[in-house]
């Protein structure tokens, strides 16, 4: 695998890893503060 592909895959993995961790944390810590607006339901 070329140096570029190796760096590319590491960074893409990192990006999606961060997004997944934040999504899980958001669901856990902000579940009591959900929107009550009709358009958001």
């Amino acid at each position, binding site marked *: 695998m070329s140096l*570029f592909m190796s*760096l*590319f895959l590491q960074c893409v993995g990192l*990006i999606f890893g961060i*997004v997944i961790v934040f999504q899980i944390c958001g669901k856990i810590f*902000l579940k009591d503060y959900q*929107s009550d607006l009709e*358009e958001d339901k």
Partner: protein
Amino acid sequence: MGIFIAVILYEIISIGGVSLFLLYRQKKQQHAIESGDSFITSNRDLPTAIVGVSMALAVLGAVHVFGIMEMAWGMGAVSIWFSIAHVVLLCVICLCTGRWVRRMRVSTVPELIQNLFGKKLALICTCVIAGQTFAILTMEVQALGIVFNALTRNAVGITTGAVIGGIIGIFYVIFAGMKEIGWVNLINTIVMYLGLIVGMIFLSGLLPGGWTAVENHYVSTGQESMINIFGAPGMFLSFGVANIIAVTFAQGISQMGLQTSMAAKNEKTIIKALWIAAPVNGIFGIFTMAMGIAAKSLVETGNLEVANMDVAAKTAGATMIMNYLPSWLIAWLLAAFLGAILSTFAITTMGIGALFSKNIYTLKYPNATGAEQTKITRIFIVISGIVAIAVSSFLPEIINGANWAFAWLCPIFWNVIYGLFWKRSQKAAGIVFAVSWILVLLWTYTPVPYMLGLGGIPVPFVTLGVSIVLGVILYATLPGEVGYFKQKKLDAAKELLGGNK
């Protein structure tokens, strides 16, 4: 000059085409142009794809293009953490601050401050946020000048380039506002990524010895850390974490960062948009970082000559692109870079226009109609664009300037968190703002920090420290109302209990 004309034509066709289409549609729908919310927040109807790319491009500008290439020269692959910091920022916007401003139906960040801490602090924050947004805008103008200068191989000077770029940037937003930015962003993102992918395929094939030679060069010269995304020991903490903190706690509450969220259809749209915004923004930096690493290895192995070694960090990446790629691909890549910078220019001028029309103009004319607000927003888009062009040539380096601008917003981020979830205390917020901003001025214009032995601490860390330490002490001791969301929760519980009785 052919490349320059091709890029200008692309910008005119993409921006002109989208604007004409949107104006035609607005004319058919009648109501849209009359409403101030149509121009500033697109009647809060932007779908997921537009919200995703617009959020990504709003915070993807000059530093992603030139800053990362420049940083890669000095520190190597660890420079990608500037881009990763923006991924963390987008997570915070899409899952927290962006949702909250959309839920509260505000059009500007000072409107949010007004809901939490009253009119006076909102007005002060308007001035600070407008100033910070303007600082970012001037840096984008500077970068626009650099792109045009590179495009024409010095035939167009940086100042003239800034004027041309500024004019195109104003057209990016002036016709249909937020909706126009959104749709042009979508086109730009597709063109930008296709350009980056094709450019990288060509570059990989044309590099002498390919990427293996780049890797071998760094390994054989004892610079292995240059090709490691965590860099040399200590680099991840001193650069990576520092960037995550500075970027997230400043841009997480900036007008330009939140403008798109305010225009989203609903909260679900914002949450889903994260899956588009994070990769679109984060992956861009991988390309510029890799180009920076390749350019340095080419210079060190004698395969690339730069005119002035003193500024090689700044020019090597662009020189490599100009020397190694065919003309049509240079045009495509630079058009991609230009699109990224123009999108940030557009959203920052829109932010400044919105701040003036919604938070300053309405002080004198509280009953201003939507059409009047749209007119004022347009006027300030043009004024801020022109003034930014005029002052951009007197600016410091782009990266230093960005960090300084970020420092002003850190206290606003933390006070908003306290005000939403803990307590709304005008006094505590006012003191935290005042102390933080006085320290920014001391750090910038006086030798006081050096006299205290604190000169090495970057200014965003100073305001972050004050916001957390002083903020927690003051909010714990001073009186105030219950936090905004906490109050809503209590009200809902009371209503429920009342209903049960």
